[in-house]
Structures are given as structure tokens and as C-alpha cells.
């Protein structure tokens, strides 16, 4: 029974990891088509770095991901505070809207925003892309911060107020430190979601603002591109670092809870 379980896990994880492993191996393989091992090389990384279009798209993607993650975390945190602490008309409907946004397929969000941008005359490029990315990250950041807010003891605020804390002190000394781990993991999650997105970006950006996933998509549609392997390897390592970082924050969160 135990062996069976091990085999099952091994099977699933090789399904999940083998393709990625092959991709990484081929990034260092001299053979262009990755059919057999022809010796170690770094030339695909050089080809990649020499591809100006690709590098520009990478810069665009990073810029969008950083901005989208920052704003999505900020607005998501405010939304979490509003939904958990304030009572106002339409609260349930707005909360429902957020949940629907999270469940709805990306393509629906993509074309509905495209129709909006065209209708109100926002040209397709940096701003349309940023708005779209913030919007699809928002439910995730809201949920993450919400979970944290629901977990903390509201009497902490009363206690701080009784001890003479001002509203500002309350925010900086009590609320922010408690929310910090949730804010960090929201930011990391949004950053990843933004870098990962193909569907929304392919509708709401214009030719002047090409982003990495779209560039990769148009490159691999026609055939094997070893520099894509190199780029993919970097992206895999990046997500590995991000997962570990976010896991560390969750750890910190748990430790805090034990202490509190």
C-alpha cells in the first residue's frame, strides 16, 4: 500500500516535472533540435541576450508585473479591509463580482476589457495592459489579505487604542505588521500571475507594447527555438525562487500565530 502510494506520487510528479526538466537540459544542449546530447553550451543564452525584441519584451513584462503586483496588492488590501470591516450598501454584490472575476475564464475578462477599452477610447498598450493585469490579480490579493484579516483578533485594535495609539500609529504599528506576510505573498502571487498571462495580454495590448509571453508564443508557433529554452530555464528558476520566498512568508505567518 505504501509502495503503491509512492509510485502514484512519483508518476504524477514525473508527468509534472519531466517536460520542464527536458526543457532545461535542452537549454544547455549544443544540438539545436534537442534530439540527442551534443555537449554543454551556453550559446543559446547568448542568442537570447542578443535578441533585442525578446529583451525589450522581457523589460515590458517585468515593468507590467511589478506595477500590477504593487497596485493589485494595494487595492486588494483596501478591498479586504472594506469588505471585512465596513458595512456599506452593495457590499455583497461587489464581493460576488470579485469572486466571479476569479472564477471566470481569462478569455472572458480579456475580451470584455477589450470591448471596454475600445468603447471609452483607451489605446491599447501599457495602460490597458496594466489595468487588465491589476483586475485579474485583484481577487487573489483580496482573498489572501482577507484570510489574514479574519484571522486576527479585533481586540488588538481596541487594546492599542486604549493604550493611547493614534489612528496613524494604529495603522503603522498594529495593522501593517499583522498584514505584512499576506501583503508579501499577495505581491508575489500577482507578480507570477502577471508574468504568466498569455490570454488577457494577447487581447489588450497593442503592437507597440509587446510582452514576453506573446513574444514566446509567436516564436514557438513556427518551430523549435533553442533560445526559448534558455529563456524558459531562467523563468523556471525565477518561479522556483518565488515559490520558496512565498513559502517562507507563510512560515513566518504561522510562527507569528504561534507567538500571538
Amino acid at each position, binding site marked *: 500500500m505504501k509502495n503503491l*502510494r509512492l509510485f*502514484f506520487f512519483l508518476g*504524477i*510528479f514525473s*508527468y*509534472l516535472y*519531466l*517536460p*520542464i526538466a*527536458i*526543457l532545461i537540459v*535542452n537549454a544547455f544542449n549544443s544540438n539545436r*533540435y*534537442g534530439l540527442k546530447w551534443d555537449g554543454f553550451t551556453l550559446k543559446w543564452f547568448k542568442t537570447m541576450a542578443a535578441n533585442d525584441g525578446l529583451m525589450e519584451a522581457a523589460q515590458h513584462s517585468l515593468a507590467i508585473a511589478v506595477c500590477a503586483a504593487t497596485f493589485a496588492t494595494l*487595492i486588494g488590501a*483596501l*478591498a479586504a*479591509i*472594506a469588505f471585512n470591516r*465596513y458595512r*456599506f450598501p452593495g457590499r455583497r454584490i*461587489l464581493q460576488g*463580482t470579485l469572486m*466571479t472575476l476569479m*472564477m*471566470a*475564464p*481569462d*478569455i*472572458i*475578462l480579456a*475580451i*470584455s*476589457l*477589450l*470591448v*471596454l477599452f*475600445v*468603447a471609452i477610447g483607451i489605446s491599447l498598450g501599457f495602460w490597458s495592459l496594466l*489595468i487588465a493585469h491589476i*483586475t485579474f490579480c485583484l481577487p487573489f490579493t483580496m482573498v489572501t489579505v482577507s484570510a489574514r484579516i479574519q484571522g486576527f483578533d479585533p481586540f488588538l485594535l481596541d487594546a492599542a487604542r486604549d493604550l493611547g495609539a493614534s*489612528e496613524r500609529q494604529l495603522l503603522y504599528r498594529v495593522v501593517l505588521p499583522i498584514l505584512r506576510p499576506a501583503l508579501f505573498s499577495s505581491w508575489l502571487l500577482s507578480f*507570477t500571475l502577471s508574468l*504568466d498571462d*498569455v*490570454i488577457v495580454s*494577447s*487581447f489588450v495590448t497593442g503592437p507597440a507594447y509587446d510582452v514576453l*509571453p506573446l513574444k*514566446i*508564443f509567436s516564436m*514557438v*508557433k513556427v518551430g*523549435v527555438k533553442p533560445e526559448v529554452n534558455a529563456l*524558459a530555464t531562467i*523563468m523556471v528558476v525565477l*518561479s522556483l525562487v*518565488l*515559490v520558496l520566498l512565498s*513559502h517562507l512568508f507563510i512560515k513566518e505567518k504561522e510562527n507569528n500565530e504561534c507567538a500571538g
Partner: protein
Amino acid sequence: MKSRTRQLVIGLVSSWLILFGVLPILLLVGTSFLAQDPIEFMRYDISLDAYRQLADPAYLEVILRSVKLAAFTTFFCLVIGYPFAWLTARLSKKSRTVVLILLMIPFWTNSLVRTYAIRMVLGTQGLLNTLLMKIGLIDGPIRLLYTDTAVILGLVYLMLPFMILPLYANLEKLDYRLVEAARDLGASYIQIFRKIIWPLSLPGVFAGCILVFVPAMGLFYVATLLGGARQLLVGNLIQQQFLNARNWPLGSATSIVLILMMTLMLTSYGLVLRRLATRKVRP
């Protein structure tokens, strides 16, 4: 001071959600009732043309085929994901964390890159063909790429965590004493599964299926990279109408089909939750 901040927060959050969440969907629904215009994307005339085009048998066939592919994907995700979630929930706390992190790493890796990786495995001279030839199952390379099977394989690969995570969240909470009690009373494994575990896990099953089924139909790049140039998924149809054919009303009408399916699934999910809740009250 405090109430002004409060108003500002509520104002910002609600206006963002209304402007970029609710309004776009209303515009989308509106667009589906407009007339097509080859130059301006659409004409501001009320028309049911888009829905007439949608009902065209050739077009409907693609939609049905997409539903079939998504259904297969959901089925395989469930068949693999259920035991995975169950086994993970029964692990010690430490190994559980490891398994979940191992599951999350691919999930955090760019999905386009992973689809491309699948393509390298499936190619005529890729890993799978080489392996099958080595062990003598096949004589020459077989065509794996550009088939429906390849698309399903890719979709399952991408969507699996979306099935496992809600199932895991549900099964982890399951009171294991119920299983022990049933075993003490002489229930077989099959009985325990059918009468206890499965009914209690239904909310997780539904949540997982909702997160896999409808979004899978939108993943047009998977169909493009693994299924070839054919129009396989609803996502390809929508992309085609919006970006190439410039028939926005038809593209919008097609997306309404997805929205309706989504609504249907969410409603049935709500019904299942309610039924389970009332069952608990009954003595």
C-alpha cells in the same frame, strides 16, 4: 478623518470593480446583439445576426467538440486529482507541505513555457516516441503531436493543480473518525468511499470541476501549440473572431456560451452546498 478615509477606500474599491468588472461584461453582452461591420468591428444596430451565425451547424460542431475536450480534461483531472488529494491529506504534516510545494512549483511556472515543454516531449523525435521505440512498443515514431490526445494531455497538465487544491482543501477537513467508525461497523472500502467520503467531498469535486471545465475551453494557445492549426477550443473561436475575422458580435455571442455554462455550473454548486447543509441538520 476616519470616515473620510473610509469613504475613499469604499469609493476606490467599488468604482474599480464596477468600471473594470461589471461594466465590461455588460458591454460584452451588448456587443453580442450588435450588427457586424468588417471595418469598425461592429455597427450600432440591434441585430440577432451573431446568434444566427452561432447556431450554424459547422460553428456549433466546434463548440461541441470543445465541450468534449474540456469534459475529457475535467474527467482525467478528477481521476488523477482525487486520489492525489486524498493521499496528500493523509500524509504527515511535514510530507504534506513538501508534496504541496512540489505541486505549486509547476503551477507558478509560466504555462506557455510548460505547454511548449509538452510539445518537445510529444514530438516525433521527442522523449515519448524514443522511449516507446526503445522498449519495443512501436516500430517507428507515431504522430502524437497535433492530435486531440495531445491537447487533452496538455490541458490536464495545466489544469491539474486547479482540481487538486480545492479537493485537498475539502478532504483535509474530512473527519477521519467517520471512516474509522464505518470500518468498525464492518463497511467495505467501496462502501466507505461511496457512502461517506464521496458525498462529503462533493463540494470539493464541484469546485474543482468548475475551475477546470470552463477555463479549459478558453486556453487557445494549448490548442494552437499541441493541436495544430485547427479550431479546437471555444477560445480559438473567440480569438479568431476578435483578432482575425473582426466579427466582434459573433465573438461576444460565443463568449456568452461560456458565461452561461459557468453560471449553470455555479448554480448547481450552490444547490449541492445547500443540500449538504440541510442534510447535516437532519437527525
